[in-house]
Structure formats: C-alpha cells, structure tokens
C-alpha cells in the first residue's frame, strides 16, 4: 500500500532537514511528542532540535520572522496550524514577503514556504474549516501550490522548499492527510489513464476512458481532486459520458496548459473549488482560457463551489455548504448536451 499524504509530507520534511541544514521549521506546537496539530511535523524536533522553532501564538509575527530568515539565507518552512489563521499574516505575506524580490529590484529573494492545512468536512466549524488561499490570488509575487494524492506530495513540498526562490503558499487539505497517495505509473493511475505534465509543479490529467474520448473537462485541485475523480467515475457509470479530470498544482501562477488542451478536446468545462466561488480559482480558470480552448467551448463553463456562507459546525449544514460529488455531477449534467453522443476528437 502506498503512503498517506501525511506520511509523504512528513518524510519529505525529514529528508530535507537531513540533507540541507538551511531548512528550518517554524510554527505553533511543533515539538515532539506532540509534533504539530496534524502531525506533518512529527519527529522533526527530536531529530533537528535546533532547527525547529515552536512559536508563541503570533501568526503575523512568525510568518514575518520566516521572511527575514529567508532573506538571511535560510530556507524556512512555516506551519500555520489551521490555514484559517493565515489571514493574520496577510499583510506580512502580501505587503512584505511577496513584494520584496521585485520591489528591491531583485537584490533579495524570499525563498519561503508557508504550509496551510485547509478545508472542511471534519466538523471544526466556521474558523477552522475554510479554504482561504483564494484570498491570495492576484497578489503579485506570491506563488500558490496545492498538493493532491495524484502527485508526490512530499516531492512537491521539497521542490517548493529547496528549489523555489519565491514565497510559496503550500496548500494541503486536512481531510486529505489520511488519504493514500495514488501514484501515476506507466501512464495509468489505477483504473484510469493518467498523464502528468513536466515542470516543477505538474498538472495531472485523469480519465477512465482514455484521452481519446472526452465529453467534458472537470478541473479541480487540492481537496476537490478525489471528489472530481469520483464524480467522473459516476458520470461514466450512470450516464456513459467520459469526463477528463485535470488537477493543477500550480494555482498561482495558474498552469493552464493541461486544462486548455483538455477543453480543446472536450468542448465542455466544469471547474470546482472548496471555497465560495466569487473571485476564486474557478473564475480564474474560466477567464484565463486561451483563445483556442475558448473557441472549442460548446456550452457555458460551470463553476462548482461552496455556498456563500460560513462553514457551520452542524454536519448537515456543513455538508450542504461545501461542494460534493453530487454537486459536481449536477454541474456536469447541466453543461453536457442532453442527447448528443460523445465526442471522439483526438
């Protein structure tokens, strides 16, 4: 059995700290035996005592400290306990860390990684369940990378930490931690045909029917990726329609190639995200379609997102608020023509 996403991330942290002494870890409640709220940091303080900084509850302060450390030649990884708290550091990230490289005429860089456990479905209520990276879209200089089980999560984190000179928000998903990695091998991922793009932050394309047949492109990232795959499977079984799922990891700048190629083939687009839709990922995907993909559209793209409400504690309310497989299916059925047989463009 493959690793869980959590194990993959934890081992990557161990590996990096072992191999590169510039890697430091900063955040709340990091020390063993506790090892961080979600245990991504477990064992690190034991193995690398001097490079794990357990902090006071000072999100703005310690994100800013990490910015200074990055300017000083270290490679800090910040753990924000719940991604919801990143808003406390919005000024440090947007007006400081993200601006410095360009504003100082490239005299400095800020190779910072801020890990953000995001997402709901665990009953944590309004201030511990959000998916807030959307609020950092369009902040110049700030990269956003989101992992998912179809890429090597640990490798992604390592790329962000050791090879990327930009400040990166690294988006994880609380519900995903316990999920197993679902590696792509030999062009397949389990029952699906699978492609993974080149580049440091790859996009994954998955299809139960193979890439010759695509009725629809479903774009989802992070915690929505596996729901999208589930919806694609159900669409095939229940409607006999082929849905290609495209999962980008580079959310900012948004990697559009795989999306565009798929849309050019399928002509139908649904985009999903766990946060409310306004000004979010889906809007960006739809608006950033290259001309050729746009021209291929045979119906209006649809968004699937959360209701525009805080995320309630009540399981019933939370489930009704967050987008699920049913919502994805419904959107796909809305966008697909009722009758037509499936396309077969290569």
């Amino acid at each position: 059995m493959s690793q869980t996403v959590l194990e993959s991330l934890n081992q990557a942290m161990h590996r990096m700290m072992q191999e590169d002494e510039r890697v430091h870890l900063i955040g709340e409640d990091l020390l063993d035996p506790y090892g961080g709220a979600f245990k991504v940091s477990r064992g690190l303080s034991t193995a690398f005592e001097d490079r794990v900084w357990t902090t006071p509850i000072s999100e703005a302060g310690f994100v800013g400290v990490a910015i200074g450390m990055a300017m000083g030649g270290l490679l800090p990884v910040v753990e924000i306990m719940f991604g919801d708290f990143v808003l406390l550091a919005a000024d440090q990230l947007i007006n400081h860390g993200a601006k410095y490289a360009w504003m100082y005429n490239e005299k400095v860089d800020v190779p910072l990684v801020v890990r953000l456990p995001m997402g709901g479905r665990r009953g944590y209520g309004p201030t511990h369940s959000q998916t807030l990276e959307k609020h950092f879209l369009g902040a110049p200089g700030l990269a956003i990378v989101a992992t998912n089980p179809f890429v090597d999560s640990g490798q992604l984190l390592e790329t962000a930490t050791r090879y990327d000179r930009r400040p990166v928000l690294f988006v994880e998903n609380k519900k995903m931690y316990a999920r197993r990695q679902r590696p792509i091998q030999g062009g397949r991922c389990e029952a699906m045909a699978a492609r993974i793009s080149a580049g440091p932050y790859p996009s994954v394309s998955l299809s139960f029917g193979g890439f010759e047949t695509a009725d629809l492109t479903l774009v989802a990232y992070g915690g929505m990726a596996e729901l999208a795959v589930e919806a694609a499977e159900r669409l095939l079984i229940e409607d006999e329609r082929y849905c290609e799922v495209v999962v980008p990891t580079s959310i900012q700048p948004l990697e559009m190639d795989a999306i565009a190629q798929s849309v050019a083939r399928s002509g139908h687009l649904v985009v999903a995200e766990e946060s409310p839709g306004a000004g979010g990922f889906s809007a960006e995907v739809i608006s950033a379609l290259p001309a050729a993909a746009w021209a291929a559209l045979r119906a209006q793209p649809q968004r699937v997102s959360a209701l525009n409400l805080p995320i309630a504690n009540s399981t019933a309310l939370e489930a009704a608020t967050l987008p699920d497989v049913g919502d994805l299916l419904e959107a796909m059925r809305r966008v697909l023509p009722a009758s037509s047989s499936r396309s077969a463009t290569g």
Partner: protein
Amino acid sequence: MVAAERKGQPERDEERIDPRARFAQMEGPHSEKLYAQMRLIRRFEEQLLERFDRGLLVGTTHAYIGQEADAVGVINHLRAGDVVFSNHRCHGHYLVWGDKPEALAAELMGRSGGLVGGRGGSQHICDGGFYTNGIQGGIVPGALGLSLAKKVRGEDAVAVVFIGDGTLGQGVLYECLNMASLWGAPLLVVLEDNGWAQSTPSYREVAGSMLERARAFGLEAGEIESTDAEAIYNHFEGIVEEVRQSVRPRLEVIHTYRLCHHSRSDDHRPAEEIEARRADDPLPKQRQRVSEERAAAIEQAVERRLQQAFEAAEAQPQPSVDQLDDPLLRGMPGPQS
C-alpha cells in the same frame, strides 16, 4: 429620510436579564450555588467527552475541567447589560452566564435548537451578551468596542474578555490594551494562566511578565493564584466593581491549571505535573464547604438536569438546509424614501 431602525435583536432582551438571577433552580446559600455551578460545568464536560468517545459528536472540543473556579468566581459578579467574550474554552464560562446546558449541548451536536442553531459549534457561540470565537485573541477588539459602545450609550456596563496565557502571543491584544487605556474602556481582561497553551508550556511562549505587559500600557493589573472558587469570587468582587466605577480597563491574571487534555486526546504534559495538580481540583475544595447532604442533592440534581439536557439535545433535529441563502442578499438595505 428617516434613520434606519435597528433590526430586532433577540439577544438584547436576554441581555437585560440579570445573570445573577439566572441560576434560579439552584437556590440556597452562596457556597452551594458555586458548587452547583462548578459541578454542572464539570459533569457537562465529562459527559460531553464521553459522548465524543462514543462517536456521538464530530469535530473537537476544549474542556474546562480544572478551571471551573475561574468562571464562577468572575461571572457571578456580572449583571444585566454586562457582556462576556470568551474563547475556545468557553463551555464553563457559558454555563455560568447562560445556564442552558441543553442549548449548549445541542449546539455542540449541531442541532437546530443549539445556541446558534448548530451553526457555530463549540468555539462559536452567542447568547444574550455572550460571544465566543475560535481565533485566539481576535475577540479582544470586539470586547473593547462593545464596552465603548456601552459607555457611549451611557450604560453602566462592563465587558469581560477571557483569554489564556498562550493568547498573550497575539499582537492585537496589545493594540487593544493601548486603546482601552487611552480611551477609558470598562473592559476587564481575565487571563486564565493554566501554564500551557495546547502542547506548549508558558515558558516557551511568554517572555517577561504577564502583569507588567498590562501595566506597561497603563492598565491596572493584579493576580491571584488559586483554584478556590470562593477565594476567586471574593477577589473579583471589588475588581468588577472597580472597572465599572472607574470606567478604566484592567487585566487580572488567575493562575490555575487545566486537569484535562487541551482538546480531545492531546495531552503530553508530564504525568507527575498533572498528578501534583490534582490536589488543586476546585471541586472537592468547594464541596467541603457544603454539607454532605446538600452536596449529594446538588449532584443528583445536576445529573438529572444534564441527562435531560443531553437527551433533549440529541432528540433535536439537524438544522434545516432549505434556506441557506446568502446573508449578503438578505442583508441588502431596502429602498429608501
């Protein structure tokens, strides 16, 4: 053009109820009342945790076990019009303030009859001038603002905000101490120093002196190291009144200890340390002040009440998902004339 009418706010009626009168069903002498309140909190938390273990609840919760004396020692001095802001560890504060175990239990279970209809859950409740939120320190500005609003409106009210030692890490707290001091706010910051913030001992996150941090901003500050409910009650008697009369902010530290884990199963504190502090359990201390007979009667009454509360809460339906409309659309102002 007429001034906008303030929309009906149910809780404002509640606010008019004197919290000192709320604990009506537990009549009798002061010592018994304090014991009864603490027992209610303790057993509420224990039953809640047990229900978590049985998988009846999802999410998480922060129990107040060991700190009950703080809530009863402070909140029993508040009166109609006063307000309380609390944090993640709010059940104890709330049970003294609002005394509605069923509505609290229902809230934690996400039921329709919960304090806020199942929307908030453990860390996000509201009832008649009692507010909590799950962002450490983030409630302090609201408490300050509400205390100033009451001052502006000529109310004779005090706002109490509970924070933990770990929350001393949040910068916004100091922004508020400064403004509260500059503007003469009737704000009482109660710092429950239980020596730990989640898994982190105070010495790793609080440099310098808690009291001096407040004094440096021009606040009066004091402290008490006790888990004796009556000692704390007596200590705060004058303090609450002083804040009310002087219309000046104050920070008061209670050095205490939590006898349970931080949230649900995360306790790595040294076993000896916890063991040593069991002697400070506030409940036996207060029980001693009550006759065995009354104590037993109180305990029975609490059991009965909690059983009813949890059963009634469990019987409540989940909130309806039919009307989840965007509050922004609902809140749009109507046409003016």
